[in-house]
């Protein structure tokens, strides 16, 4: 049951959570467009898109959506271990 963040084989199906940072403030209304992920606007003018990603090809699908909108990508970070905390903390 332990969630090991690294050294995972690509076959493990458990969805990972990712934090994707882009340049510009993206309105929260885009949440549905990004399949219900959470959008947080940061003070430094970036937006963090955060939520579960089923697998690598879903992640690439997400990149494609960003690229389609011309949104410049700043960083992509897997955020393991937060899953439980996030569920309780996120009221939306």
């Amino acid at each position, binding site marked *: 049951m332990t969630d090991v963040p690294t050294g995972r084989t690509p076959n493990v199906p458990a969805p990972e959570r990712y934090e994707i940072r882009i340049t510009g403030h993206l309105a929260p*209304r*885009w*949440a549905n*467009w990004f399949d219900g992920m959470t959008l947080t606007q940061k003070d430094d003018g970036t937006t963090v898109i955060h939520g579960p990603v089923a697998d690598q090809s879903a992640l690439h699908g997400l990149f494609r959506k960003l*690229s389609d*909108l011309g*949104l410049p990508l700043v960083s992509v970070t897997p955020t393991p271990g937060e899953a439980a905390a996030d569920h309780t903390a996120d009221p939306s």
Partner: protein
Amino acid sequence: MLGPLLSSKYRLPSPRPGSVPRQRLAERLRAMSQSTLTILSAPAGFGKTTLLTEWLAAGCADGAAVAWLSLDRRDNDPALFWTYVVTALQTAVPGFGDAALQLLASSPPPIDAVLATLLNDLDGLPTDLLLVLDDYHLVETPEVHEGMTFILEHQPPQLRLVLATRADPPLPLAQLRARGRLVEVRAADLRFTAEEAAAYLNGPMRLGLSDHDVAALEARTEGWIAALQLAALSLQGREDVSVFIAGFAGDDRYIVDYLAEEVLARQPADVREFLLQTSVLERLTGPLCDAVTGREDGKATLVALERANLFLVPLDDRRQWYRYHHLFADVLHAHLLDERPEQVAELHRRASEWFQAYGDTSQAISHAQAGGDTGRAADLMEIAMPVMRRERREAELARWMGALPDEELRTRPVLGVAFVGALAQASDFDTVGERLDQIEASLRSADGTWPEQPPPHVIVVDQDNYRALPAHIEMYRAALALATADLAGTITHAREALSLAPQDEPLARAAAGALAGLASWTTGDLPGAHAAYTESIAGLTSAGFFADVLGCTITLGDIRRTQGQLTTALRTYQQALDPTGPAPGIEPLRGMADMHVGMAGVLLERNDLSAAREHLATNQRLGEHNGLPQNPYRSRVVKARLREAEGDLDDALALLNEAERVYAGDYAPNVQPVPAMRARLRLRRGEVAHAEEWARERQLSAGDEPTYLREYEHLTLARLLLARHRLERAPSALEEALRLLEALLTAAERGGRGASVIEVLVLQALAHEAGRNAPAALAALHRAVTLAQPEGYVRLFADEGTPMAALLKALSKQPAASTHVRRLLAATTTAGTHASILSELIDPLSERELDVLRLLGGDLDGPDIARELSVSLNTLRTHTKSIYAKLGVSSRRAAVRQARDLNLIPGQRHS
């Protein structure tokens, strides 16, 4: 056939009015004439398409013919992708790539052959050809990228390839870059400079902005053209331009959001509503918009939107179809998802219904799936199935069904069985058995019977198809059994399928008949196989599957030839080609080429080389793409046999090697394996070691049980044993050969395989002769000749060369010798190049020329011969010249020798 093509996809977009000239980029594009590939790689809204259309409209393509193709997601099917590419090329060069298109129409299309044909056609092109593929990033299938890579690697200088894409494609870019063969125009090049931004905003958009405002906009948008366009639209009609720009420049919001909202907010409520609701559509047209919005102003609204420059791109000149600018469509769709998530499914359903009524099933299904209504998607597939089958669009059907969740297929027996059919066609049998069991279990009643009506827990749209399901299930079980080499199982299931198939289901009967026939054939039951195939052909003919009729005809011909009935075989092929026959008006029909290959084979057997050559030429003219899957290998085999008969054994060997490479069994049993043919040829070339190696690999031994499937190999082994005996003088080899031949004779006679019987007798004669048992040898040969005469077999004898010639000569001296013996003798002694002369020139020599030839063989000189014939010396010279030409010689002595070899004149000089 891939269904109707959208002509708007390969229509060169007209340049939009009021765009900014971009000299610096035009310079860059000019380099493409020295390059293999040009890519414009940048995110959406950087003006890639606009740059290209303007550059082309300005005639910068240097006189090259221009083909344009706008790709979409459906083009991930390689067949569809290449069909569109070739169709686009045809708009530039009419008639270009017809052969490739025909190949693409077959099922499944041989993509490798398509590409080779295309390259070939490009190579012969007198003009340069520029092909633009717009939106290449939508291609994700590795197969398409592989095909593109193949083209790039073999690209003829005439072709210039231009890709506009949002992401670098997985093509060998680094390699091309290193070799200086790649022109790249990237986002940094495409973005508007400050000057270009000013030219745009103050030129066509007439905004009259100050330098300061332009600089602020340029900085905020970073020259992103789509954003500048949106900004210009938001600014139109504003009083507070500078205030707006200042506010915009100081905001962190995603530009498109900020500006699109500005634009949207200024639209009347009904236009805004229209934009959101129609954002589910990939393509828009008035009536479709009406269906989706439930309003009646679709056409008028589209015209107004285009006039207001609201990101609507016309797809045709008649202003019937449009699409939204990609970026704008995404923004609209995001608004829809946010504001009316509950409407999305309903909007897709309306679009799906409209497309269904419009007759575009593919779009109807695609919207049903986008709306999450897999049930509706499945219904549509089931309804479309009969038409799709008739139009041979099984591959597309298979892709649709593959996109359905397995649970959906489980409750839909008709679709489930059709999906099994698609899997079987792709030779993917892993889950076939399990799927069939599941479907049968879901249908059969507790008492084991098939209910007349579908049970309540399954969904059946096509009731006719439901009635045929038991037969189809058994048919696919037979196919599965055949795929696992379970012949008994194949026959059992195929017979079961035949008994279950409704009388009015010709296709089911045909398929089951073919499977039963195939299995019977494989076990050597030729009459059973023939009867089953005849049944199958009747079914296929009445169902209108003419190409498949020809496919079965190949088999019928093979069976007749194995039975030793050359005349019937020939008639079988001819009847299939009869223009008043099964397929009137379809020309050239796929499979016609195969009939010519079949006829060439029969005629070759009769040593009619020139006729065989003609049929092979016809096959070539019709093209491999008009052949069935076996054509490439079969045509090479016959060609190899022809070259062999003509005496060119090197060519024959090369052709057999090629035949092996392109071998495709198409489910037919491999009764004459190419490696065995090659072993025979090796023996004829004196390369016994090669043949020995083949026999070892095939683990052949004289003591094997003679079966039909190995008969051809065993007959080859017998030849090898005779060669071994000749080489090593080993009596054991000869004994083995005789024993093997005896067993083969019994088996061939029992199986009614007339051709094999003759061949065994020929080999027995040679074996007895090698054992110095002349009476036995002559007795066997006499039987062989007697059996061969009515059907005109020649090459079975002639191929055996000198030892056979000696035997035939001996036989010809017997009082009961038939005319056929002399024919065989002539063909055998004139092996090699002579054989072709024989077949070609015997007839053309006139009676008079033969008279001259006879005298040339005597001792008279020219003037004496002229006197003898009462002609002038000049006339005599004309005759001799003609004779020399026909015999391919240049002297009297050579002519006489040739004529004697051909038995044209008595051979008194040889003893």
